[in-house]
């Protein structure tokens, strides 16, 4: 429950307790008497305000904020983004170039970590191959005298350097392909082959429809899928590939669009 609904009661309690404790030592002084009266007036007025606040129901907007804050605190006590995460609510330590001061990030999204399985497996296999080959050569006592001196060392070092850097580059490819949903906008960064990068952002007011697509056994099993955000006019549509909890992402975006529509209707 937010502080606004709890604090007045506590304030009232403490103030009334203070009042009972406090007994003026010298009641004969007129100044003290006047001050006492003013304080009494103030204390008498406060309960009315408190009652009004207690009666007042939280608005839909407040409910949404309460919902998001509760959700985030319950599920993730520490909201700083871990290294290999691909879905994080209310992240800390993440900022983007054009972020405005009051523009809080609601979700941080990346491709599910399982999408890295293919390249991770191939890198591991390629790292093992030379070990297997050299152990076979030593086992069968195959002579490598025909090779120039130092050739094997140089080739092996180059091979390992290439494989490890390939793995690193694929990791960067995954690490820098992110999508951020803020209270105002949707922000998408795509880094393809580490050479070309695309940064797209659109306002939530321009979002028309949100869909999710979850096909395949792996996607159903590990709960990840594509989220398509359709925007109005000539704006590009957003396709977030293989993001975790796509239904939750759709819900949040729909809530944000709904909230914005309600605000526009109220204006």
């Amino acid at each position, binding site marked *: 429950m937010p502080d606004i609904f709890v604090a007045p009661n506590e304030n009232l309690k403490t103030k009334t307790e203070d009042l009972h404790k406090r007994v003026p030592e010298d009641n004969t002084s007129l100044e003290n008497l006047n001050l006492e009266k003013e304080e009494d007036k103030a204390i008498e007025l406060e309960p009315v305000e408190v009652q009004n606040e207690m009666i007042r129901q939280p608005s839909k907007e407040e409910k949404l904020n309460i919902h998001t804050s509760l959700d985030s605190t319950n599920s993730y006590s520490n909201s*700083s*983004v*871990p*290294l290999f995460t691909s879905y994080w609510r209310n992240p800390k*330590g*993440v*900022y*983007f*170039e054009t972020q405005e001061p009051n523009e809080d990030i609601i979700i941080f999204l990346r491709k599910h970590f399982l999408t890295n399985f293919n390249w991770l497996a191939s890198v591991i296999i390629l790292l093992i191959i030379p070990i297997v080959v050299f152990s076979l050569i030593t086992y069968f006592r195959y002579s490598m005298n025909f*090779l*120039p*001196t*130092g*050739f094997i*060392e*140089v*080739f092996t*070092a*180059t091979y390992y*350097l*290439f494989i*490890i*850097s390939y793995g*690193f*580059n694929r990791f*960067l490819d995954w*690490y*820098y392909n*992110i999508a*951020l949903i803020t209270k105002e906008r949707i922000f998408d*960064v795509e*880094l393809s082959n*580490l*050479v070309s*990068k695309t*940064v797209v952002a659109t306002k939530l007011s321009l979002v028309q429809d949100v869909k999710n697509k979850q096909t395949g056994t792996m996607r159903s099993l590990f709960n990840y899928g594509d989220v398509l955000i359709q925007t109005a006019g000539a704006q590009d549509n957003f396709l977030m590939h293989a993001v975790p909890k796509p239904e939750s992402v759709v819900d949040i975006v729909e809530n944000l669009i709904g909230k914005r529509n309600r605000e526009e209707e109220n204006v």
Partner: protein
Amino acid sequence: MFNFLGNLNIINLSRSLTFFSFLKLALILFLIGFIIFQIIISKQISSMEKIVIQPMSSAILNLISLSFIILAVLILIFTFTLHVK
């Protein structure tokens, strides 16, 4: 025609290019290309930090990329010292 090419040392060069010397040349070219590519990636990492700041600092990623470049340079120097027939 052949005399002309011979004067340009193209034929002599192709005759002197054995299998291992060809491999050495290919390795040198590959390593030079690799170094250039890693430098581009290092620049990309720096530029990505300007777009989105994430908890894992780009300095660490840049350091890894730089270590690849240093390793590639060392291997390149070692490759030049190889004696091939």
